[in-house]
């Protein structure tokens, strides 16, 4: 019974933990702008996250090595350093967007400008990273993030035209007013929101923190195979809610509050409250995970002691990196950069950089020196390679699309 409870908790945490400010913003923006025509991008992104999340989790459980340890060991010090710098800078941008996102939610609750909240949010995230036990952080915030299920409920309560939504998703076309560059730019943003580099770093490092062993591969796979798809379903629900309620009114989503309006219409203040709770928990959890991921990456690369289970005295440099990244990200948001625009740019650039993180995972997952007979099966390699090729194409076209579309303007 205890094991079932533990598994359920893990899966639910994975659902709540999958969604962050990137998913909230990109799903809301694209739903209002393209209807359900970009649902496929979430499906592809979630599939990629499942494939590579499973590989990273397996390497962490069997070889007892997290992502950046593998990157440095298998791809060398220089390539690893380039990878570390790129991943850390992107995670820093994402962290800034997450901190700004929590500030935006607090603005929606209190009416006080998000800029005022940002330093307090930065402090709260640091305290969580520094003091809160790993399991408690993961479970409490993951469970609260499940409040986002209210978007699925709202779709069923409101008079939703399911036929139109389904038709839009299964017959994707580019709206006449948008053009192909804009369509593919936002497809990449949705894709990038599902496969952000920090998530896989956190997932594998968190596996080490949780003490995964080969015997617990089932736990890890359930998290990946049930939790991540349901997390993807939440992103789709947010997009479809925006498509059903905002697109017919020709509303463009430029602010986080607009994403919650369909829930308010369907379920009133209680639904709205749950949506805001889900926003806050999901984005706060993502901020903590993002800060930890930067610390994990740097510490694993340089071979320092790391881990949230260790006291700050036992892993001072790891904690210092987490703290410094939080200070830098907080300062970045305080420059009054628009958090929504920052989010879109961060997820799109993250999609471009993702092969740097995923390629070493694919290499390690085929290494018998690490995994023995638990290396990738042939079909998994085919899927992994197909996905990697897709990511490489995305890497090539992302920056031109970013410039052509003026970051989706």
């Amino acid at each position, binding site marked *: 019974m205890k094991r079932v409870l533990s598994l359920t908790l893990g899966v639910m945490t994975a659902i709540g933990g999958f969604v962050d400010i990137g998913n909230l913003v990109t799903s809301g923006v694209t739903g209002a702008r393209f209807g359900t025509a970009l649902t496929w991008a979430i499906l592809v992104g979630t599939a990629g996250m499942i494939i590579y999340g499973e590989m990273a989790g397996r390497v962490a459980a069997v070889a007892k090595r997290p992502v950046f340890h593998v990157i440095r060991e298998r791809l060398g010090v220089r390539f690893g350093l380039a990878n570390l710098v790129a991943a850390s800078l992107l995670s820093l941008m994402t962290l800034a967007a997450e901190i700004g996102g929590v500030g935006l939610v607090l*603005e929606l609750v209190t009416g006080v400008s998000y800029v005022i909240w940002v330093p307090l949010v930065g402090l709260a995230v640091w305290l969580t990273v520094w003091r809160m036990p790993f399991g408690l952080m993961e479970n409490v915030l993951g469970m609260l993030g499940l409040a986002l299920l209210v978007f699925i409920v709202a779709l069923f309560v409101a008079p939703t035209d399911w036929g139109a939504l389904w038709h839009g998703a299964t017959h994707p076309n580019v709206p006449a007013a948008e053009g192909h560059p804009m369509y593919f730019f936002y497809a990449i943003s949705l894709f990038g929101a599902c496969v952000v580099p920090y998530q896989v770093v956190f997932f594998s490092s968190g596996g080490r923190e949780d003490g995964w062993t080969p015997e617990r591969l089932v736990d890890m796979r359930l998290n990946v195979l049930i939790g991540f798809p349901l997390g993807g379903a939440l992103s789709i629900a947010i997009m479809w809610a925006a498509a059903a309620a905002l697109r017919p*009114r020709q*509303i463009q989503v430029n602010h986080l509050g607009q994403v919650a309006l369909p829930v*308010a219409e369907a379920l*009133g203040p209680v639904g709205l409250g749950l949506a805001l709770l889900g926003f806050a928990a999901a984005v706060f959890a993502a901020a903590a995970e993002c800060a930890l991921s930067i610390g994990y990456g740097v510490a694993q690369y340089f071979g320092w002691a790391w881990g949230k289970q260790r006291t700050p005295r036992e892993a001072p440099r790891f904690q210092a990196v987490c703290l410094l990244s939080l200070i830098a990200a907080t300062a970045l948001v305080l420059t009054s950069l628009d958090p929504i625009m920052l989010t879109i740019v961060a997820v799109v650039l993250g999609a471009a950089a993702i092969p740097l993180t995923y390629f070493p995972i694919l290499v390690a997952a085929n290494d018998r020196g690490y995994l023995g007979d638990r290396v990738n099966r042939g079909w998994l390699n085919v899927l992994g390679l197909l996905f990697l090729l897709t990511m490489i194409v995305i890497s090539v076209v992302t920056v031109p699309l970013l410039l052509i579309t003026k970051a989706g303007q």
Partner: protein
Amino acid sequence: MLERSPWGGVKPRAAAPQASGARQGLSRPSKGTSPTVPYDLRRLAPHLLAAVLAGCALAGCVGPTLTPDGYRHKVLDSAKTVAAAAASATYAARLELGGRLAFAVADTVVSGAEQDAGDAQQALDSRQPPDAASMALGERARAPIREVVDGLRQLRIALRRGEDAGMRRALGALARPVDDLQAMVGS
């Protein structure tokens, strides 16, 4: 033996090569493997820098003059943005009037819409119409855009005062200019 440079500085007179030694030519002797730097260019650099900075400052005040097509695109884009902002504020205000939205959320959405519409108005105002037809198109869009921006301001004020009647009045006033803008975008 100096003469006034056309850029306002002074330069050695070309007729006195002996006195100016290495400066007689256009370049100083290079040091080591560093490339030679034209001497006059060094003296011109501050002026060039000032000119570039002044250009940038002017460019920041007024947007670039567009082609007629580009200007038309800008006008329609502004009209679309302003109409979308009004739609967002209207949706939030109706939910607030129906008791389905928290005040802080309604206020944030309406204020955000007002900001977006104001930004689009300013962006359009900063563009120079390239010809008479473009100017007429711009004028056609400016009136409803101004009305929407004013209407959104009225809506925000009424919302913050908790005046339901004022909100309904502001919503009513938004309807016609929004229709005009949507018709323009659709045309």
